Structures are given as structure tokens and as C-alpha cells.
């Protein structure tokens, strides 16, 4: 099927004469606009949720997969020596791009949410943390653990997979739920517009019968209805999308402390996505109304 743009523009421009044949129906018109607007508004949020959880899952699986933590639990007097030994060992381990002991300030920042500020980290038997960044190939965790056990008895390797995997799964599941919501919202909108269109067609059964009697083709009659509902859905969805985007825009921005909520919203070119909603809503309305109109017309002589 070739997409004929002039047919679409002709359809949207409409036929002033044909438009007058169907009497205006204030109430169903407002309901259609409202339904399309509300659904578009909800779609914006479902979309924001899907994209944000998508980003989250990507980050967790990409960035965190490259990082692991080595914990040195040793008596205070041996801690520095064991840390240095561990760092030397890591430098010679294939697959490790870099390794770095966290500074006192960094460790204090990590503990601050639980113990409050000004914690004397240095004088407490708190394990020293070493951040290990893998290169492309990655290291062999089992081999590294064996070597560490031999040379740095106080070291425990945590490669994050234990807690990262369920989070990535959860984020992926959330993203899937977001997309399912969008599909459900679209289907609900189609159902609502079908009902509204059928109500309008039933209310105008007399008009349709007269048009048939004077020689109007089905396509002509259907177009008069389909065009109205498509334009209403387009208008309603555009307004709903605009409101939804404003609402997402004025969401309080995520703070560093709420890292895992990272920006429920759109980032960069993702702002283009919600703009797809109004035309998509119009397409849904077009298909739903056309189907309803054709079915109603087939029942007439």
C-alpha cells in the first residue's frame, strides 16, 4: 500500500458541505475529546516510566557490570599493608582496567546516610573498600578470589552480580509493564471511541438512511463521521500530551540521594517520543470509527 499524502490532507481538510450533513453532536464530541486527552495524558506517564526504567536497567547492567568492590577487613594496623598488597595484586590481574582505594571522604559519604556526618572513619574498624573497574574482556572472579585468599587474607571480593541481577530484572519488568500499559491505554481509547462513534451513528441513523436514499455512497457517509472523530481524537490527544509533558517537566528533579529513581521523565531526544502520541491517537480513532461506521452501514439497505 502506498501512502498517498494528498489523500490524508484532503481527508483532514474535509468537505464543508459533507460536514454539514451530519448534525453536530455536542455531548459525544466532548466525551471523545476528553477520553482522547485523558488517555494521552496517561500514555505520557507510561512512556516516561518505560523510558526511565529502561535507562535504569541499562545503567545497572552496563556500568555496574564493569565495577566490583574489594573489601579489606583487617585489624587497623594491617589494613594499610593489606590494601597496598591487594592493589598490587589487582594491577597484575588480567582483565582489571583500574583499581583504586576509596578515600576516607568517600567512605564517610557512603556511611553518612546511616551514621550521620563527621564519623571518625579512620579510627573505626571499618573495612577499606577498593573499587575495581574491569576492561572489555573482564577478569576471572574465581581465580582472583584464590589469589586474594593466598596473599591478602582479609580481602573479600564482591562482583555485584548478587544484588545487581534482581534489580536489572525488576527494572526490565517495570519497563515491560510500562509498554503493556501503553498498549492497554491505546486499546481502551479505541474501545471508547468505538462506543462514542457507535452512539453517534445510532443517533444519526435517520440521517444516514436519508443520505443512502438520495444516492450517497457508503464511503461518503462513513467519511463524514470518521473525519469528525479522528479530528476530535487528534485535538484531545494533543492537549492531553501537552499537559502530560508539562507535568513530567515540572516533576521535582531526582536528587543524588534518590539515585535509583533517576529522573522519571524524558532525557534528550526522548522528548520526541510523546509527540508521537497525538498522531497515533488519531490513527487509532480513524481505524475504530471507520470500522464502526462500515459495520453500521452494512446493516442499512
Amino acid at each position: 500500500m502506498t501512502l498517498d499524502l494528498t489523500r490524508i490532507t484532503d481527508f483532514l481538510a474535509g468537505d464543508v458541505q459533507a460536514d454539514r450533513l451530519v448534525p453536530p453532536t455536542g455531548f459525544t464530541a466532548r466525551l471523545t475529546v476528553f477520553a482522547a486527552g485523558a488517555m494521552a495524558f496517561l500514555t505520557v506517564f507510561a512512556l516516561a516510566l518505560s523510558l526511565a526504567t529502561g535507562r535504569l536497567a541499562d545503567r545497572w547492567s552496563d556500568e555496574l557490570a564493569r565495577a566490583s568492590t574489594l573489601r579489606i577487613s583487617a585489624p587497623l594496623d594491617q589494613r594499610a599493608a593489606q590494601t597496598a598488597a591487594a592493589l598490587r595484586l589487582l594491577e597484575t590481574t588480567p582483565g582489571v582496567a583500574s583499581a583504586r582505594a576509596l578515600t576516607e571522604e568517600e567512605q564517610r559519604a557512603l556511611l553518612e546516610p546511616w551514621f550521620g556526618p563527621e564519623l571518625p572513619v579512620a579510627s573505626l574498624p571499618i573495612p577499606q573498600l577498593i573499587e575495581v573497574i574491569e576492561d572489555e574482556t573482564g577478569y576471572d572472579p574465581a581465580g582472583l578470589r584464590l589469589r586474594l585468599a593466598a596473599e591478602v587474607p582479609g580481602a573479600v571480593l564482591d562482583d555485584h552480580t548478587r544484588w545487581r541481577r534482581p534489580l536489572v530484572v525488576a527494572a526490565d519488568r517495570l519497563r515491560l509493564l510500562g509498554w503493556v500499559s501503553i498498549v492497554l491505554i491505546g486499546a481502551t481509547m479505541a474501545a471508547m471511541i468505538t462506543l462514542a462513534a457507535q452512539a453517534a451513528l445510532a443517533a444519526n441513523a435517520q440521517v444516514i438512511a436519508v443520505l443512502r436514499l438520495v444516492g450517497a455512497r457508503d464511503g461518503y457517509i462513513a467519511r463524514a463521521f470518521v473525519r469528525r472523530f479522528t479530528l476530535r481524537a487528534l485535538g484531545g490527544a494533543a492537549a492531553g500530551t501537552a499537559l502530560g509533558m508539562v507535568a513530567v517537566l515540572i516533576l521535582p528533579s531526582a536528587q543524588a540521594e534518590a539515585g535509583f529513581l533517576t529522573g522519571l521523565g524524558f532525557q534528550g531526544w526522548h522528548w520526541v517520543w510523546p509527540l508521537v502520541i497525538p498522531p497515533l491517537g488519531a490513527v487509532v480513532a480513524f481505524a475504530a470509527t471507520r470500522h464502526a461506521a462500515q459495520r453500521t452501514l452494512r446493516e442499512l439497505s
Partner: protein
Amino acid sequence: MIELEQVAMSYGGGELLGDISLTLSPGSFHFLTGPSGAGKTTFLKLCYGALVPTAGHVRLFGTDVRDMSRDDVALARRRIGVVHQDVQFLDHLPVADNVALPLIVSGHDRGEEADNLAELLSWVGLSKRAGALPAELSGGERQRAALARAVIMSPEVILADEPTGNIDWEMSQRLLQLLVELNRMGKTIMIATHDMNLIRAAKSQVQARVLRISQRRLQAAGADL
């Protein structure tokens, strides 16, 4: 133009019309009469493709209605002007738009046809009522507007179902006059009516055949009319 061949029409088991054969030839003038409920309206509906016969064949302009698509039927109706018993207007549009409805739905440009429409409205004496809504018209005015709508596409056939049903004698004669004029212009006319005076009045002006539906059959009515 319109041919019926051994047509039968049944509703829910009971036969309303049976074994009906008739050919409407160009320029002919027919009256269709019979008691109420005899099937006059059904007969006319068969003639403009609103009903498909349960047996036999109806051919509109040479094509069997069974072989016609819905669009074909729509196109055939543009060549058949119908004055419906209950006029069938769009109540939210003024008379002028209702009369022009066949032009609008067939995609004619209203601007080009404006003169045609004005002439037609003056012919049926509704020039002054062009802007009125159908509900504001009297019975006679509605019937004349319905006739104007039936002929605006310059159809070859005009079917009128009780066009004088609820109007006074003087108005009936005016309407008949309009139909007779159309017949003289070469149009085929079929009028369903049970008004014998109307038929007698017509017979003095035009060569009219009178058909009667009786006992489910179509018969030529006697010469006494």
C-alpha cells in the same frame, strides 16, 4: 429502465407480492393503486433497490440488483428520483440544502448548480421558503420540496409514494401538474396512490396506465377509471 421479472417478495414467511412482471419504459406514466397494506411501498422499494426480491429478478438500467454492490445501488439511485411517503428530510438543514442533497452527496459543486436550484425551487413555488427548516413547512410544501429533491439530479425515472397523501385537493392538483410536466419532458413516472380522483384528473392530461395490486398480484386496472 426498470424491469421486474416474476418477482416475489415475502416477509417472515408470508408472501406480500408474487409473480410480478413489469417493464417501465422511457417516457411512460404509471399509477399504482391498491388498498392500504397491499404492498405499494414495497413494490416501489423493489424498484429503487431498497429491497432485494425473495424470488425473480429486478433489473435497474439493465443490471440485476442481486449483482449490484452497495455503491452500484447508490449510483443507480442518482438516476431514480424518489418522492418518499414520509418525505425523509434532514431536519437540521434548510429546505434549499435538503433539495440540493442529491447534488451534495454526489460531489457536485453547489456554486455551479445555484441557478439550477433557484429555478427548481421557483418551479415548485418554494423560492420564498428556501431558508426554512423542514419542520416549518406545511404538508403541501414538504411534498413539493420532496418532489424538487427527487428531480434535481435530472433523473430518468421518478417514483412517488403517495405524494398527495396528506395535502388538500388544490395542492394535489398542483403536484400532479408538476409530475405531468416532467413526463412531457420525457421522464418515466410511477405514482403510488389510492386517490382515484387524482388518477382521473391525470388521465385527462396524459396517457397513463393504471396498475392495481390485488391479492398479491399486479393487474391492469379496469377501464372504468
